[in-house]
């Protein structure tokens, strides 16, 4: 064992840029519990009610926001659950159903103990007597890794709150909060029509805290180093670091930890943006297309992207290859999203295939009537009318494609292909669309 120069009092704090990803470059495998403790120090004790309140205060003061896509203030969420009566339940969301996102998988594969620390700390802080880690059924290697890490912790005497690891059906909408609760209660991994909100009555009718695994990993660091340290990185109103997945027309696609509030252009440059790429899909398949020039100086934050009609989502940036047709890519993604509907709400069940057909006609430059006008009308008739946000996200992505590729859309609507499509690249599938998980399997 390597415990030569071990001196817990002198463990250096992680740098401003490599916090969650500290040591990833050196270790191409999950950090063991020993390595984890050497890197970050031991799990801070959670003594009594005061210690728990202290963590709630620290998380709120740190300004941590949810890293799963919604960006809700984590401190507020923790407190809402802590203030409810009776024992609570914690659910760690590691589903990462956004096809282009890889950051949660990377985090669980490299630093499982950071996530498990966060689960233990947040569970104690809100008074949860049990915790559940939800993973996608298609990624069995993940469960093996996490279970091994949990066994290590048990052997070390860590683990006041029992953690159950679950493998849920891997559909796009299965990672939705209400889907997780419904499934954990013995139902299908499909969204339900709230209220009650999970924090009021969730798993087995208990107050339930649901947080993304990256968010929980940040909690583990805030508990160790404090809110002040957390804010040393990032920008005002967007503190700390965040994990991003950068892919598409870049030389080094992958997961990058960046300061929160970093500019879109700087993040793309980090991954080696290829010349000629003029558009970027920000936020994943649920996100929005943008002209790179127009957004490269904007910070990758909710407030920064709002004027451009975008949002960082789970921190996904996909650069469109120069030779690709953006409409064709958007049409393929929209078709995928239509297929990923939970098949519950009429406007989603019928509306998404309808606009996928419209956009497909446009992408192929084989318009039947006026697909552009139909799309604009149907966007308004679909958005906001589902039990979950799935139809809204699909509409936002499609509408942003029409804005960003407006000239191409205009040409295609008159039966003329844009240069990208003319080169025959509309079928090269620049952006991968996963094969759907077993259709109709929701349990």
């Amino acid at each position, binding site marked *: 064992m390597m415990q030569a120069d071990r001196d817990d009092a002198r463990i250096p704090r992680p740098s401003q840029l490599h916090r969650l990803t500290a040591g990833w470059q050196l270790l191409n495998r999950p950090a063991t519990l020993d390595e984890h403790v050497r890197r970050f120090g031991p799990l801070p004790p959670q003594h009594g009610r005061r210690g728990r309140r202290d963590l709630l205060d620290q998380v709120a003061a740190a300004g941590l926001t949810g890293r799963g896509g919604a960006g809700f203030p984590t401190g507020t969420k923790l407190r809402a659950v802590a203030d409810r009566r009776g024992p609570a339940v914690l659910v760690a969301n590691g589903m990462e159903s956004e096809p282009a996102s890889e950051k949660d998988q990377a985090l669980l594969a490299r630093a499982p103990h950071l996530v498990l620390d966060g689960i233990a700390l947040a569970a104690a802080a809100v008074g949860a007597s049990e915790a559940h880690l939800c993973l996608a059924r298609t990624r069995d290697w993940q469960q093996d890794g996490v279970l091994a890490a949990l066994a290590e912790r048990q052997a070390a005497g860590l683990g006041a709150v029992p953690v159950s690891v679950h493998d849920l059906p891997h559909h796009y909408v299965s990672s939705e909060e209400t889907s997780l609760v419904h499934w954990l209660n013995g139902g299908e991994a499909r969204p*339900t*029509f709230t209220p009650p909100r999970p924090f009021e009555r969730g798993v087995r009718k208990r107050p339930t805290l649901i947080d993304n695994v990256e968010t929980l990993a940040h909690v583990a660091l805030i508990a160790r180093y404090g809110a002040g340290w957390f804010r040393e990185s990032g920008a005002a109103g967007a503190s700390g670091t965040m994990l991003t997945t950068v892919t598409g027309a870049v030389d080094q696609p992958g997961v990058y930890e960046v300061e929160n509030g970093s500019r879109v252009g700087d993040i793309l440059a980090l991954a080696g943006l290829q010349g000629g790429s003029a558009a970027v899909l920000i936020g994943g398949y649920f996100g929005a297309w943008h002209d790179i020039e127009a957004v490269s100086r904007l910070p990758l934050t909710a407030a920064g992207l709002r004027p451009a009609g975008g949002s960082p989502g789970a921190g996904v940036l996909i650069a469109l290859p120069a030779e690709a047709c953006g409409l064709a890519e958007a049409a393929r993604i929209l078709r995928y999203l239509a297929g990923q509907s939970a098949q*519950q*709400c*009429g*406007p*989603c069940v*019928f*509306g998404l295939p*309808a606009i996928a057909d419209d956009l497909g006609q446009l992408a192929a430059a084989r318009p039947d009537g006026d697909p552009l006008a139909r799309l604009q009308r*149907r966007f308004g*008739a679909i*958005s*906001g*009318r*589902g*039990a979950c946000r799935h139809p809204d996200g699909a509409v936002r992505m499609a509408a942003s494609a029409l804005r960003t590729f407006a000239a191409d859309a205009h040409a295609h609507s008159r039966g003329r292909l844009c240069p990208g499509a003319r080169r025959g690249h509309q079928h090269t599938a620049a952006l991968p669309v996963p094969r759907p998980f077993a259709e109709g399997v929701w349990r």
Partner: protein
Amino acid sequence: MTSTLRVDPIACVGHGLCADLLPELIELDEWGYPIITGSVPPGLAAHARRAVNACPALALRLSRTTQQLTTR
């Protein structure tokens, strides 16, 4: 005090009775699913209740709110 109509989109299967009974506040989209076009003025409260009671899927709900809600 105003009342607001809400559709449970999972329960709704698009029978469309509500739009027949309350065309002032409910229209159907091209697939036959209801769109609520406004909150319920006092004069239409009885009609709104009738539409709620007529829904075979129990998908239409009427709730009282103290402040004006924005409709989507």
